[in-house]
């Protein structure tokens, strides 16, 4: 099947004075239409920068980027603001505080779908109904500050799908919400993606959330892909030592507590630090001297593999 999106060796660096901080380092992957990818990682791993690069939302100043983002199923390029919808962590910052909810959604419908204003307002009401806001007609005249956090995120979702995109990118869409609301938004994302036939890129630090929503997982560390593959196998049989540690450190409400939680020692590398070998080496329980001297190689296929020297050597033996 023709991929909806293919990223080839995408790299992004931010300027910091005279230095360049490498945020994303040669990331490649392909996303089929209607597929769901979870980009996982901790803060500073480059997951948000990668998502912004895919959506072509990076600022132009102070940025150095290379590699290619292509949209084969769309004939090569995505139409800006149209084929990719984006939902941010904080809906308050992505909604315009001085426009009513209806106006904001209708504006998108007028711009991208060429609807008349009354038709666009009808469409906005339809969309608000679709994202599960009660009494959508009355809600059209509401302002963002009159809504709860969960309702705002629903409005942001409605706005993101107004132009009928092929891909929805959600960057930590539930991190600012409480558990109950979070579950509702996850359910809504799931339902919308299925109903509309949307492909989904979920950016999250929460492995459990990713496992519940996505089919493919991509774990990032210090700008590189540490592990990529079907998310079921990633959480049940993690290969990269970092992923193994994350799975071991994850908590489960069904499991009685252990005396000590499994922890990952140390902290992620500073952005811009020169790392000759593997970035995870200082925190890795299975690190060897070779890990320090040369960067790990990708072991596996472009759609399923690990960025770790141990698997690289294993693969070399089998080859």
């Amino acid at each position, binding site marked *: 099947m023709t991929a909806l999106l293919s990223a080839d060796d995408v790299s992004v660096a931010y300027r910091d004075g005279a230095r360049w901080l490498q945020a994303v380092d040669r990331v490649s992957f392909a996303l089929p239409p209607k597929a769901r990818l979870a980009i996982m990682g*901790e*803060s500073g791993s480059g997951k948000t920068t990668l998502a912004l690069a895919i959506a072509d939302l990076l600022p132009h100043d102070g940025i150095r980027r290379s590699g290619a983002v292509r949209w084969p199923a769309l004939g090569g390029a995505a139409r800006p603001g149209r084929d990719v919808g984006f939902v941010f962590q904080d809906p308050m910052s992505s909604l315009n505080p001085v426009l009513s909810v209806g106006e904001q959604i209708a504006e998108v419908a007028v711009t991208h779908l060429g609807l008349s204003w009354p038709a666009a307002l009808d469409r906005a009401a339809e969309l608000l109904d679709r994202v599960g806001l009660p009494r959508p007609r009355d809600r059209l005249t509401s302002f963002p500050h009159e809504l*709860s*956090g969960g309702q705002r995120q629903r409005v942001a979702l409605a706005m993101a799908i107004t132009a009928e995109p092929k891909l929805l990118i959600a960057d930590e869409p539930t991190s600012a*919400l*409480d*558990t*109950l*609301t*979070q*579950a509702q938004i*996850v359910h809504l994302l799931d339902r919308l993606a299925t109903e509309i036939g949307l492909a989904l890129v979920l950016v999250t*630090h*929460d*492995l*459990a*959330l990713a*496992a*519940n929503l996505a089919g493919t997982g991509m774990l990032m560390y210090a700008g590189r892909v540490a592990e990529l593959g079907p998310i079921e196998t990633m*959480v*049940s049989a993690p290969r990269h030592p970092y992923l193994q*540690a*994350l*799975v071991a*450190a*994850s*908590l*489960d*409400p*069904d*499991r*009685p*507590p*252990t005396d*000590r*939680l*499994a*922890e*990952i*020692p140390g*902290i*992620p590398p500073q952005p811009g630090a020169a790392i000759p070998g593997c970035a995870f080496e200082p*925190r890795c329980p299975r690190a060897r001297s070779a890990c320090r001297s040369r960067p790990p190689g990708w072991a596996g296929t472009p759609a399923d593999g690990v960025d770790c020297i141990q698997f690289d050597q294993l693969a070399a033996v089998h080859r």
Partner: protein
Amino acid sequence: MSAPLLAVSGLVKAFGAGSRRVVALDGVDLEINAGETLALVGPSGSGKTTLARLILRLIEPDGGRIVFAGTDLLSCRGEALRRMRARFQMVFQDPLSALNPLAAVQRLLADPLRIHGGKTTATIDADVASLLELVRLSPELAGRHPHELSGGQRQRVNIARALASGPELLVLDEPVSALDISVRAQILNLLRDIQRSRGLAYLFISHDMAVVRAVADRVAVMDHGRIVEQGSVEAVFTQPAHDQTRALIAATPRLRRAG
């Protein structure tokens, strides 16, 4: 049985007036014993944060009693209240926002020592060093500013600052929800070690039931300004009695899907 460290009874608090009046707390009774961790859970808007702010005397209640170690906290004023403050402290949710951006770690940790210890500069330096050691931070971080620290390091500074006055109760308001998973376990283990070595009681506010199960001795579930269920962590998780408790547990994402 000995008297609880903190006893809250009939606490009522409403915000606004007239038709905009919102009852945040509607008669809350709660006890925390010395050395235990009581988790306070509930969705946003259930009154968890209001309860914490009342206990910390950041806001005034409309009614009810707060008794800390036998002292009626609500009747404490001025110097008496300031002295009591040394005994209950708080760790905030957002470790960056809770630190003055212009103050270096040294000054952040010296503040409570000056306020409560009446210490001289020489002993303060030694005390700051031992606080850093307690939260497993390198002494060279003393000269850094909050924006030069990682998220985990910032939260360690917050914990150290809260411990400086030698409190008996720490109110932890979502202390790990802003942290990465790889750092979360470090902080939770650190909190547990400190609790054991110092016999501290924790009021652990969270909406994340997975974290609560890992850290709590007892759990109190809040909904609409009331405590709707309270019990040992084992009882609350294996036999939840209230709908709100069941909903919270069910809504928590699991790494492995059941079945």
